[in-house]
C-alpha cells in the first residue's frame, strides 16, 4: 500500500507542476483579451518582483525557445531565422524566438504569445541586450536594460558596508526606480511598496524551500535527477516566482522529495556514481543524455544550472528584507549577480564545494555551440578540479536546442569511456 501512496504523492507534485505550466501558458495566451499588460523577461536579472506589483503577465522568451527544443519543433523555427539571414553561429534561443516572430507568434505549445508592453534585459548576458533590441524593433515595445555590476576580479568580494558595495547598490536601486516610473506610465497604476513586500515574502519562502530541495539531493541515493526532474522544477519556479501558487508548489515538491529521501527511494534504481552537471542543458536531447548516464547508474545529483537559471534563487544566503522592499531588491539583485551569476571564471571554488557536499564522483561539462561565453571557463574549471582533486571529468558538446549539433554516436562514446574511467578508478580505490 505504501507504494501506491507514494505513486499518488509523486503524481501530485508532477501534476501540480504541469497544471501550473498549463495555467501560465493559458494566462499568457489570454492576457490581451483581459487587457493585462505583458512583459518579456529573461530568467536572470529580471526584476520580476516589480512586474508582479504592477500585474504584468510574464513571458520568458528563453523558455519559449527551449520549449521548441523539448517539443522537437526547433528546426522549423531555427530555419526561419536562418532563412531570414541570421548566421548559424547566432544563439539558437535567439533564432528560435526570431522564428517565432516570423511565425506570427504561434508557439508549438498552442499558445499565441502576445506582444510585449515592456521588455526587460540585463547586462548579465551580452546577447540579452541585442535580443531585447530585436523586440524593440519588431514589436515597437520599450526595452529596459538593467545594468547590474558584475564581479571585478578573482579575489574580489562584494562586502556590505563598503563604499563600492553601496555605490553598486545605489546604482541598481536608481535603475529600479526608473523601471517603476516606466511601469507606472505603462499600466497607469501607482507603485505599491506593500505589494512588493508581499511578493518578496513569497520569493523568500520559495528560496528557502528551493535550497532545502537542492540540499535533499545530497542524500544517497539522490531522490531526483538535477538535469531532468530539476529542469521541470525550475521551469515552474521561474514562471510562478513570488506568487502564492509558486510557494504552494515548492512546498508540495519539498514534501515529495523529502518523502523519497525518508523511504530511501533514488531516481536511479542502482545508484553507482554521483555526478555534477556543469553548463547549460541540451533541451533537444536532454532525456537521451540523461538516459546515457543513468544506464550506467550515474545520476546528476547537482548542477550549477539549477542555481543560475533559477532566477537568482541560488543565493541561499540572500533573502529579501520586506520591511525595506526596494532597497532590499537592489541589494539582492546586485549580490546575486556578483556572487552567483557573473563569476563563471571563478566558479571553481563553488563547484569544488558542491563536489564535497554532494559526494560527487565526477563532473560533466556541457559546452554549447550557442554560447561560447558560457563554455569559456570550462577548460580552466576542468583543469582545476582534475589537478587539485584528481576528480574525473568529461567534456561533451552540443547545443541548447539545435539538433544539428547533437552527434549521438560521438556523445555515447564519450559517456561510455567516462564510465570506464569511473569504474577503473573505483576498482583501484577498492570500492563500488
Amino acid at each position: 500500500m505504501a507504494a501506491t501512496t507514494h505513486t499518488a504523492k509523486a503524481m501530485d507534485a508532477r501534476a501540480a507542476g504541469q497544471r501550473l505550466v498549463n495555467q501560465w501558458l493559458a494566462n499568457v495566451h489570454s492576457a490581451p483579451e483581459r487587457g493585462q499588460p505583458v512583459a518579456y523577461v529573461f530568467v536572470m536579472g529580471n526584476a520580476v518582483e516589480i512586474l508582479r506589483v504592477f500585474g504584468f503577465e510574464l513571458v520568458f522568451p528563453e523558455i519559449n525557445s527551449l520549449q521548441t527544443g523539448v517539443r522537437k519543433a526547433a528546426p522549423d523555427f531555427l530555419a526561419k531565422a536562418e532563412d531570414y539571414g541570421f548566421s548559424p553561429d547566432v544563439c539558437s534561443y535567439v533564432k528560435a524566438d526570431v522564428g517565432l516572430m516570423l511565425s506570427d507568434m504561434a508557439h508549438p505549445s498552442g499558445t499565441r504569445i502576445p506582444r510585449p508592453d515592456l521588455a526587460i534585459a540585463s547586462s548579465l548576458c551580452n546577447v540579452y541586450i541585442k535580443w531585447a533590441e530585436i523586440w524593440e524593433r519588431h514589436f515597437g515595445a520599450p526595452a529596459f536594460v538593467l545594468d547590474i555590476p558584475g564581479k571585478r576580479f578573482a579575489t574580489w568580494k562584494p562586502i556590505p558596508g563598503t563604499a563600492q558595495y553601496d555605490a553598486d547598490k545605489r546604482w541598481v536601486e536608481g535603475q529600479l526606480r526608473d523601471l517603476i516610473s516606466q511601469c507606472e506610465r505603462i499600466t497607469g497604476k501607482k507603485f505599491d511598496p506593500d505589494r512588493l513586500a508581499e511578493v518578496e515574502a513569497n520569493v523568500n519562502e520559495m528560496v528557502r524551500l528551493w535550497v532545502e530541495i537542492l540540499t535533499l539531493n545530497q542524500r544517497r541515493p539522490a531522490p531526483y535527477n538535477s538535469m531532468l526532474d530539476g529542469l521541470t522544477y525550475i521551469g515552474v519556479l521561474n514562471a510562478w516566482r513570488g506568487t502564492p501558487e509558486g510557494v504552494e508548489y515548492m512546498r508540495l515538491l519539498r514534501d515529495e522529495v523529502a518523502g523519497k529521501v525518508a523511504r530511501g527511494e533514488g531516481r536511479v534504481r542502482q545508484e553507482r556514481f554521483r555526478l555534477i552537471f556543469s553548463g547549460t542543458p541540451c533541451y533537444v536531447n536532454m532525456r537521451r543524455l540523461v538516459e546515457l548516464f543513468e544506464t550506467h547508474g550515474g545520476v546528476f545529483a547537482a548542477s550549477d544550472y539549477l542555481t543560475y537559471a533559477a532566477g537568482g534563487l541560488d543565493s541561499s544566503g540572500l533573502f529579501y528584507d520586506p520591511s525595506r522592499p526596494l532597497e532590499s531588491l537592489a541589494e539582492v539583485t546586485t549580490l546575486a549577480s556578483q556572487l552567483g551569476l557573473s563569476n563563471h571564471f571563478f566558479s571553481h571554488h563553488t563547484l569544488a564545494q558542491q563536489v564535497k557536499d554532494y559526494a560527487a564522483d565526477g563532473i560533466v561539462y556541457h559546452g554549447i555551440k550557442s554560447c561560447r561565453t558560457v563554455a569559456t571557463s570550462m577548460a580552466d574549471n576542468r583543469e582545476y578540479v582534475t589537478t587539485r582533486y584528481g576528480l574525473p571529468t568529461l567534456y561533451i558538446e552540443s547545443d541548447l536546442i539545435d539538433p544539428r549539433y547533437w552527434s549521438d554516436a560521438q556523445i555515447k562514446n564519450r559517456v561510455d569511456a567516462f564510465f570506464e574511467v569511473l569504474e577503473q578508478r573505483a576498482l583501484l580505490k577498492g570500492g563500488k
Partner: protein
Amino acid sequence: MLYVAGVDVGSTQAKAVVLDEQAHVAGEAILDVEMNMSSAAQQVFDLVVASAGLTPDDIAFTVATGYGRYRVTFGDLQVTEISCHARGAVAEFPNTRTVLDIGGQDTKAIRIGDSGEVVDFAMNDKCAAGTGRFLGAASFALELPLSELGPLALKATAPVKITTTCTVFAESEIIGHLAKGRRPEDVLAGMHHSIATRCASLVRRVGLTPEITFTGGVSRNAAMVSLLRDVLDTPLNVSAQGHFMGAIGAALYALDHARAGTPGTRRASVEEVAP
C-alpha cells in the same frame, strides 16, 4: 590452449587480433568498412580466426571496440576504444603516460595514470580536421594511395601552409596550391603539419606527460610521426602494431575475462544501435 579476440570496428576499417594465453598475437586481420559494420565485423573475425589457424569455437572471449562495437553481434563485451588504445599502448610501452590515437574520423589524447588506468581524455569535437579523414581528402585530391602520402611528404623542401581546418575545404585548398604550381610533396607536408598542430593541441589539453605513445592507423605514416615529434618536441613511442592497438587492448580485456571466468555482458544487437 586459451584464445581470445579483440575486434575494433572503426569508421573506416575493421581490425581484429587473436591472442593466446600468454598474450602473444596469434593472428591479425584488417579490412575496409563499407556499408555494413556488422558484416565487416563478422568478416574480419572470420579472417583473424583463420589466420590463427583456429575456428570461432576456439575463441573463449571476444571484446568489441570502436564506433561499431555495438554492431559486433558476437562480442561478449563492449569497451570503448579510449580504454582499449590505452590498454594496448601500456602493454607494449609500460611507461606510457599519454596516448595519442589518430583514427579515421576521431583523434584522441588520453592521459594514463601510474597504474595504467585512463585518467582523462580529450577528443576532436564536431569536426574531422586533425584526423585521418584529412589525409583521405589529400589522397583523393592528389590521386595517391594513403600509404604513399607520408613518404612523399618527407621529400618536401618548401612546405605550404594549409590554412583551412575544414576537411572538405582542404581538398579545394590542395587543388588551389597545385594550380599555383606548388609541388605535391610540399602541399602534402603542409597537410601533415596542419594535422600535427591540431593533434598537439589535443595532447596539451590532457597534459603532455612523457612517455607518449602514438597509436592508430595514422601512426604508420612516417611523415606524421616525424612532424609530431617536432611539434611536441618530445620522443614518441610508435609500435609496429600501432594500427592494431585498439584491437590488442580489446583482446587484453578479453583475456582478463577469460582468465577470471567472468561472463560478458553482451549488449550488442543490430537493434541496439544509437538513434
